[in-house]
């Protein structure tokens, strides 16, 4: 395997400073460190009211009655609304299936479902008023797992389904089912010398973005509304909001406010419609801000899953077949479940060559909290399971675990279970080699001349050990994630780029509707404009719906797709600028007509470097503007019976090595190091790339050893909706995260880049689990691992 692939093609603007490939700094950095950056919860308006949502206290019940009279009578309360007050017949919303009621209608299907909304002049008044609304529930039995969902007499979570999946699912409590059949797994199993089976459980993880769901809705004079909001996709929100309000889309103006992280949790609507309804009802601006308790109910989570796997191999270590069944709990509403099923099934065997597979993935409707998008999107759960299987099988064959993976690693040209060929670099074996080659952290690193530093030991400042009973373990994992929206989705983006002279300088303005959620898209857009247009000054216009859709900030897609759209619009602008140049100055120099021309350093130059004109002179008295859509290669749907189809745009790969120290007596784990190697195609901004990889890695570690939403199986109620009881990794829990970045260009993608945000979240979790197994010798078939799983007291 070559250490470096085809050189990335950049023909334009390589001499302009601050272009792609440099670690330029965030344009919003100064505002963010001074506290001036306006997040959605910071919005304030003269005369504004505060909205509050009343949520169900039970998971599954009929609503017998709702009495709002006491709440309405309270001083300071301006409005109370229930289902009956909704202005139009469109009373549901949803990303793909419109099954989610804006406010509960006759029934609640999960704990924390919105039932009524209140607007008042103080947030505490609104909270107290909401508490005064009397809801009479008649409780129903709860559906909480596959057995209860598909029992012959199971209550249907949604009666009378007529969505586009309802026709092919085996039971109405199954949202979507995607089988993938390729080759003959049963026949191939006969050739296997070793077969390993496993049953795995993946807990419910929360995105836990720090900026709470929030926004401000301001009624407009024309009867419309202007919503300042933190979201991942303005235009998708708009499409769902406008019909419920009974407004044409142009009367719902959306401006992106500062977004305090997202990780998938802002793909679905939260308080958007509620704030708009209250603003239109009261004629006043309405602000809604969730607190953390409410946030745990206010967005979908990562699907918990049960995964059943069988892998086989010959005695020389070649995989023969994989059979697997992945059961995702989608909770009460569909959200992104169908697409998560598509991902889980198509990526279920990981980055390996297996020709004979029998795969099935389903998502259930239950009365558990709704689950949808979270970084890694179905590929995370699968990776946890198939990597555990790969370790087991390597051990059975008697091979080194890394060597076994490398022997079966996919490469460019490998055919996916879906029949799709992998047509760009797939350096799976190389990433494993790199991550393994990194030096290991020193043993007993907690020892110093001053004794043991307990901060470096399992248990930390609780001072539970000074090294006694502490065992080190090392584990490896690698994963595959798709980039972009798959299965035939029209996954385009739009960019508007203008070029003009301002104060004697050529300036480019980039306007997209891309949601900057922290990933650094705005930084990269400025870099692309510099590279393509040869200017230093780039203004990033605030994201809003006055420009075409940018698609979602998810699926690792924005640098690829909106980055691609910005590049494309810049190229179109460049052509127009050169046309103006030819018109104005063409007669002075023959190269205008004959040479390849570039924009660099504020000038028009030939590819030989000869300066033909200053951009300031070319653009004097002119401005050039282009708004254009851009698309990547189209994809196809997966066949509903065989799962065959060229469903994905691009694949992204990362590998991890985890080093852990386990206090085996107390069951406490300290992750010492999580080394990552990832192929990024082309690092447009190396500093941001590393930041993404480290952040993704830590989220993967979180669900390995601490993060889980606990849902009571008897009541389907959430037990730990707080940062006191849902534990996020702190800086003390966090290992060092060395990163090795590989850049093998994907010739189909702009600049050869690869979407990077999600891949590191996949392999991190199984690597940590493998390291804990290595330290303890335990089987550990569930994640997250808690102390009782290590001490045998579970």
């Amino acid at each position: 395997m070559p250490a470096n692939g085809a050189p990335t093609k950049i023909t334009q603007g390589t001499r302009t400073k601050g272009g792609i490939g440099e670690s330029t700094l965030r344009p919003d950095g100064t505002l963010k460190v001074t506290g001036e950056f306006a997040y959605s919860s910071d919005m304030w308006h003269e005369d504004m009211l505060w909205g509050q949502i009343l949520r169900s206290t039970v998971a599954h019940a009929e609503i017998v009655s709702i009495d709002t009279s006491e709440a309405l009578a309270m001083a300071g309360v301006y409005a109370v609304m229930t289902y009956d007050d909704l202005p139009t017949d469109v009373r549901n919303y949803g990303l793909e299936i419109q099954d989610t009621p804006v406010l509960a209608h006759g029934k609640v299907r999960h704990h924390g479902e919105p039932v009524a909304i209140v607007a008042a002049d103080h947030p505490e008044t609104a909270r107290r008023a909401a508490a005064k609304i009397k809801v009479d529930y008649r409780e129903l039995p709860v559906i909480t797992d596959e057995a209860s969902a598909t029992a012959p007499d199971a209550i249907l979570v949604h009666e009378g389904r007529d969505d586009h999946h309802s026709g092919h699912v085996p039971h109405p409590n199954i949202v979507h089912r995607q089988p993938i059949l390729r080759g003959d797994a049963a026949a191939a199993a006969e050739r296997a010398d070793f077969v390993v089976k496993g049953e795995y459980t993946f807990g419910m993880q929360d995105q836990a973005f720090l900026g709470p769901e929030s926004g401000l809705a301001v009624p407009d004079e024309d009867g419309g509304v202007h919503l300042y909001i933190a979201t991942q996709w303005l235009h998708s929100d708009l499409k769902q909001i406008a019909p419920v309000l009974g407004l044409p889309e142009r009367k719902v103006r959306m401006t992106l406010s500062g977004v305090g992280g997202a990780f998938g949790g802002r793909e679905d609507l939260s308080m958007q419609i509620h704030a708009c309804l209250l603003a239109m009802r009261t004629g006043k601006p309405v602000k809604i801000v969730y607190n953390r308790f409410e946030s745990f109910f206010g967005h979908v989570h990562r699907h918990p899953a049960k995964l059943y796997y069988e892998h086989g191999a010959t005695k020389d270590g070649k995989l023969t077949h994989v059979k697997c069944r992945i059961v995702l709990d989608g909770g009460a509403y569909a959200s992104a479940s169908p697409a998560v099923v598509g991902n889980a099934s198509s990526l279920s065997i990981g980055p390996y060559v297996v020709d004979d597979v029998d795969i099935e993935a389903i998502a259930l409707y239950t009365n558990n909290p709704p689950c949808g998008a979270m970084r890694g999107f179905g590929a995370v759960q699968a990776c946890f399971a198939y990597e555990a299987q790969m370790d087991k099988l390597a051990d059975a064959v008697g091979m080194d675990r890394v060597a076994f993976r490398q022997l079966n690693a996919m490469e460019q040209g490998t055919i996916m279970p879906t029949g799709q060929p992998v047509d760009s670099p797939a350096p799976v074996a190389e990433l494993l080699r790199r991550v393994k080659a990194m030096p290991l952290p020193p043993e007993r690193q907690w020892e110093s001349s001053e004794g043991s530093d307990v901060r470096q030991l399992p248990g930390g400042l609780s001072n539970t050990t000074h090294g006694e009973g502490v065992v080190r373990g090392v584990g490896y994992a690698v994963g595959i994630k798709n980039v972009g929206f798959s299965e035939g989705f029209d996954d385009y983006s739009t960019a508007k780029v203008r070029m003009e002279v301002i104060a004697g300088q050529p300036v480019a303005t980039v306007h997209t509707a891309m949601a900057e959620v922290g990933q650094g898209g705005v930084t990269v857009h400025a870099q692309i404009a510099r590279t393509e247009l040869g200017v230093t000054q780039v203004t990033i216009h605030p994201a809003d719906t006055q420009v075409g859709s940018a698609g979602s900030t998810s699926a690792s897609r924005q640098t690829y797709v909106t980055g691609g759209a910005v590049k494309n619009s810049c190229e179109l602008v460049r052509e127009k600028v050169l046309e103006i140049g030819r018109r104005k100055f063409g007669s002075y120099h023959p190269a205008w007509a004959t040479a390849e021309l570039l924009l660099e350093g504020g000038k028009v130059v030939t590819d030989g470097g000869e300066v033909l004109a200053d951009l300031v002179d070319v653009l004097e008295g002119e401005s050039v503007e282009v708004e254009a859509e851009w698309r990547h290669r189209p994809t196809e749907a997966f066949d509903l019976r065989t799962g065959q189809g060229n469903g994905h745009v691009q694949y992204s790969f990362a590998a991890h090595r985890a080093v852990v120290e386990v206090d085996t007596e107390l069951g406490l784990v300290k992750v010492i190091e999580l080394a990552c190697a990832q192929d990024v195609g082309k690092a447009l901004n190396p500093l941001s790339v590393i930041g993404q990889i480290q952040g993704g890695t830590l989220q993967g570690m979180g669900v390995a050893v601490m993060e889980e939403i606990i849902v009571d199986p008897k009541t389907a109620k959430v037990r730990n909706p707080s940062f006191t009881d849902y534990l996020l990794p702190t800086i003390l829990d966090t290992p060092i995260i060395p990163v090795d970045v590989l850049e093998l260009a994907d010739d189909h993608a702009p600049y050869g880049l690869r979407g990077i945000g999600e891949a590191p979240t996949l392999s991190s979790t199984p690597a940590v689990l493998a390291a804990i197994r290595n330290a303890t010798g335990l089987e550990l078939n569930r994640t997250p691992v808690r102390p009782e799983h290590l001490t045998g007291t579970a």
Partner: protein
Amino acid sequence: MRVNFTVNGRPQEADDVWEGESLLYVLRERLGLPGSKNACEQGECGSCTVRLDGEPVCACLVAAGQVEGREVVTVEGLADFAKQRAERGGCATGACGTDGKAGTSLQDAQHWAAKGQDSQTGEGTELSPVQQAFIDAGAVQCGFCTPGLLVAADEMLERNPNPTDADIREALSGNLCRCTGYEKIMDAVRLAAARQGEAV
């Protein structure tokens, strides 16, 4: 009720404050200072960290009435606060640590540093060393944790100008960040410490 206190060196008066309101609410919603963040309002995340008479506290856990007559410094005042401290010889409160534990060398601290020219907004804004280091080291993604981390990190560097990595982790363990994996935050604090050491 009415609450009088000093915020970032300026006397402030908040009227009609309801007893249950937190200092965080008063800062954000009554005084127009939303820089301190509201990620949990449960005392668990540190995004609301401010200095109260010099001590770092979670503003969401402090009742507004408790700050009567006291001094608060928020992220909005951090640059000025640090500047004044520097003018008074690197120690605004007189509580600066002196136990010269080996910190990170400037060279080590800077190896990731990027030279940027991208900050078009807020150009010319004067920043404290720790604010600048957060930008330079790439420690800011969504930035929601940043204000609280800056206040906490600045306070730690005031006490302990040469922190070890373990010291930094301990001092910042009350501040959650969901985006960065903390590595660049470590880099930023090391960088601020190294620059501060060089400047003295």
